[in-house]
């Protein structure tokens, strides 16, 4: 036949234990495939991915002088790399090793019909034989790597990741939206299950990040644009107008002391006050103030200017403009963290209008020694020390009908901690915790819950139906499902363990970085089990609660993991590119530019001078959208040509 290469293809059918062989009649498949064209050698084995299995493939490639190999087994996501490597070791071009998925797409989905599953397995393999017969040996290019990382978000996740990467010898740009790094952890009082003070364990890390010669902290800044690809990202970061020239500012604090305008402090969840020129808390890193333009008298009424007059080094500059800084980085870690679901969304819990029904972060501020009450637990409405406190878990979590379907994962533990700290502070006080069930999976976590119970915290299994102001009490109506009776508690303070949600800026950042978020707005990992730190974009990694709710130990572990990924990437000087991408037959290309408009990865471009479309190989993901769009069939996927695809279809119909 003209144009058809004479190929000797080896087919290796895997039993995958009983996964495949339990449903598909493997022996019949081998016999049927052996009769197909190109099939030079066909065999089966219990576990093809095992060492003996791989050895057999390597041996047979040499013995039978095979031109291509098909492993009929699981999804290529799992073991394509394994078998390509095995093929390469036997001298075969790795791109002439293909997988026919007869597990996920056949055996697993046709467990009830063994006969049909067996026939389908033969069809899947025969289709793949047609592809392999036309596979080209491919080799990829490589690109240089910028060994410099960007970490987005300066909470404990971002700080840890930045420190790990910097300690490994690489430069890090750490971008933080707020005036200081520290994130939510800086707001916390003490941490479960050891009750060590959050400030005491976090601030040393903040200082270390601030002082590290290879970490550049860009606080009060946000990422606005990102282009490029793994190893070669170009990022535009906006340094927001702070009203203070930080290069001059010494952090003396006289401006904050003398500023006449007081506003509710976001850091204290509205329970404390800050000035219009402020840094969020005394241990801030960098310890430089910013001006809140919504409230500052200079910006709102064009008067005052006290801070400018008092600043000895002349750092206050009302006319400072936002500035765009461009950075070249090779890898990005997204560590943007979480927000709490707003109490306003829970009408049944008072819709945020009851002053003494506060969210759990606000209660952390009441517990914190550096908080608005200096660690004394005083309720917001009248400053009274509450004698009865009701904690309501799953406020907005585990409520698929109306709020968030997922478990926020850390509330069982921090509520236990909060109730315990309350009892330590108010000895005669009564703490109640409404819970659905206690999720205390973690080292020493269950023991911690037991300890709280032994210290007198009362756990009530059931949900709260309504919370309302009742004179100077806050009445909580709920149910005790163990006693099977309704419960009514007239409390002095109610703490709502609000659901953790992704940051409001997540969607914007998702678009900038071209990564994916899930149905709940959290960033999606590349694979939930096998690649939980990566994203669908190579070179971009995840750490912390931006991916899913998690506690401090898990966050720090994940951040170190993501840092490890970056360090691993940076250990190479050049990065091999996947050759499974498109190329252009310039004789056929008319330069219409359709491919440019359909490419989701910005990988196609029109060479206007020559009127030819070109492929930016480092960006191409090989999705094939341009090949479909090309009216002249000038765009060709290197190992997924139209001819191959048609032959594959012919084989199954």
């Amino acid at each position, binding site marked *: 036949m003209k144009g058809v290469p004479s190929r000797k293809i080896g087919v290796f059918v895997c039993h995958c234990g009983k996964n495949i062989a339990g449903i598909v009649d493997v022996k019949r498949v081998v016999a049927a495939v052996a009769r197909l064209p190109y099939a030079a050698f066909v065999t089966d084995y219990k576990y093809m991915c095992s060492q003996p299995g791989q050895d057999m493939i390597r041996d047979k490639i040499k013995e039978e002088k095979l031109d291509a190999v098909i492993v009929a087994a699981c999804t290529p996501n799992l073991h394509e790399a394994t078998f390509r490597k095995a093929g390469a070791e036997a001298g075969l071009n790795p791109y002439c090793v293909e997988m026919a998925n007869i597990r996920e797409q056949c055996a697993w989905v046709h467990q009830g019909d063994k006969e049909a599953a067996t026939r389908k397995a033969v069809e899947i393999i025969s289709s793949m034989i047609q592809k392999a017969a036309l596979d080209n040996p491919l080799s990829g290019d490589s690109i240089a790597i910028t060994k410099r990382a960007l970490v987005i978000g300066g909470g404990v996740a971002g700080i840890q990741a930045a420190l790990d990467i910097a300690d490994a010898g690489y430069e890090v740009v750490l971008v933080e939206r707020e005036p200081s790094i520290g994130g939510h952890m800086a707001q916390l009082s003490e941490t479960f299950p050891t009750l060590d003070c959050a400030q005491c364990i976090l601030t040393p890390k903040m200082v270390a990040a601030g002082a590290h010669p290879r970490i550049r902290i860009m606080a009060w800044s946000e990422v606005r644009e990102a282009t490029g690809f793994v190893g070669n990202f170009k990022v535009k970061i906006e340094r927001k107008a702070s009203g203070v020239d930080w290069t001059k500012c010494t952090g003396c604090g006289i401006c904050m002391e003398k500023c006449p305008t007081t506003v509710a402090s976001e850091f204290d969840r509205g329970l404390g006050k800050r000035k219009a020129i402020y840094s969020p808390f005394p241990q801030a890193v960098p310890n430089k103030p910013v001006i809140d333009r919504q409230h500052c008298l200079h910006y709102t009424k064009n008067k005052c200017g006290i801070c400018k007059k008092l600043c000895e080094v002349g750092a206050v500059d009302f006319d400072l403009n936002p500035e765009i800084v461009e950075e070249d980085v090779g890898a990005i870690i997204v560590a943007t963290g979480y927000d709490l679901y707003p109490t306003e969304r*829970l*009408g*049944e819990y008072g*819709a945020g209008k009851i002053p003494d029904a506060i969210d759990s972060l606000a209660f952390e501020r009441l517990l914190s020694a550096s908080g608005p009450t200096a660690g004394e637990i005083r309720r917001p409405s009248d400053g009274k020390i509450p004698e009865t406190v009701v904690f309501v878990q799953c406020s907005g979590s585990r409520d698929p009908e109306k709020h968030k379907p997922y478990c926020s994962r850390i509330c069982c533990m921090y509520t236990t901690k909060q109730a315990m700290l309350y009892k330590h502070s108010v000895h005669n006080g009564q703490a109640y915790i409404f819970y659905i069930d206690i999720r205390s999976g973690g080292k020493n976590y269950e023991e911690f819950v037991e300890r709280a119970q032994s210290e007198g915290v009362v756990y009530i299994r059931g949900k709260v139906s309504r919370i309302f102001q009742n004179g100077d009490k806050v009445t909580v109506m709920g149910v005790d499902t163990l006693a099977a009776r309704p419960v009514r508690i007239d409390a002095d303070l109610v703490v709502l363990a609000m659901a953790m949600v992704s940051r409001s800026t997540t969607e914007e950042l998702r678009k900038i970085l071209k990564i994916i978020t899930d149905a709940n707005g959290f960033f999606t990992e590349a694979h939930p089990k096998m690649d939980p730190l990566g994203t669908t974009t190579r070179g971009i990694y995840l750490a912390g609660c931006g991916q899913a709710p998690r506690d401090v130990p898990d966050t720090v572990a994940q951040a170190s993991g993501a840092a490890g990924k970056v360090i691993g990437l940076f250990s190479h000087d050049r990065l091999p590119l996947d050759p499974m991408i498109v190329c252009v037959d310039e004789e056929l290309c008319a330069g219409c530019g359709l491919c440019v408009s359909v490419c989701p990865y910005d990988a196609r471009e029109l060479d206007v001078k020559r009127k030819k479309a070109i492929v930016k190989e480092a960006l191409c993901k090989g999705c094939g959208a341009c090949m479909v769009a090309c009216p002249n069939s000038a765009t060709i996927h290197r190992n997924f040509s139209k001819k191959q695809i048609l032959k594959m279809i012919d084989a199954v119909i």
Partner: protein
Amino acid sequence: MKIAYYPGCTLKADARHFEESAIESFRALGIELEELPRWNCCGTVFSFATDNVMYHLAPVRNLLRVREQGKDTVLTLCSMCFNTLKRANKLFNEDAEKRDKITGIMDNENLVYDGKTQVKHALELLRDEIGLQSLREKVGQGLKGVRLAPYYGCMLLRPDGLGIDDAENPTLFQDVLRALGAEAASYPFQGECCGAYQTVMQPEVVGERTYVLVDGARRSGADAIVVSCPLCAFNLDQRQGIAGRLHSDFDAMPVFYITECLHLALGLGFKEEWKRLHHVPVDAFLEKLHRSQNVAGAVKRQRSNIRE
């Protein structure tokens, strides 16, 4: 404007004043309620039985009657009718299997319902057709000087998405009362259960509920409770006798239908025969309203005298 009107059973019996006040008030507002020439029981409650669609036949038949009149919207006054008809309608439109079954049962009568009837409650009509701002202008002084506690009960608000307002934090009833010139009391029990049919077998249970609800309304400074459901009205009004027996600190409070308030606010008065349908006497309330309006009227007259 004319609108098809579905009364339901109680409005022809113990809640005659609910119907009369509604028909007359809406007429004064330019809306003619046209009672369906044929109607049957609404089904009373929406049935949760998944395997017996017979229970949905009654509401669907009523919805079909609306279409037979060439109308696409039906008004209900009773919250229970509103809820049953609207939920059956949703089921009919969204569950193809049950729709086919229901249609199949009515097959030999040559009846086919197209699912296109819209069910509206009187409060929605006030909001969407008349508009609360224009209602406010129409009533003038209205109910100035009294403080009313709205009681939604369960049927107006649930299930979420089907009700007339947000199930957890509703405001429509309050907004309507304010538009009528009254002060609207805010208390936490406005969407709590009234005890419903427990009133038949366990009246004490309902008496206990009534105590909590009426007491809550009283603490919020209300002069009366306003409802839109005959069962709520029965439980909150009639069962105040039991509430009083159970709790010595209980103070009785009159209970009105929203349309009685509308009637009063529009200056159409309060009929003597309606008083007999109330358990807790309403005279003191009407007296207070009368007095405050006279005071307001006197002040107004005084002002205009001064101007002259």
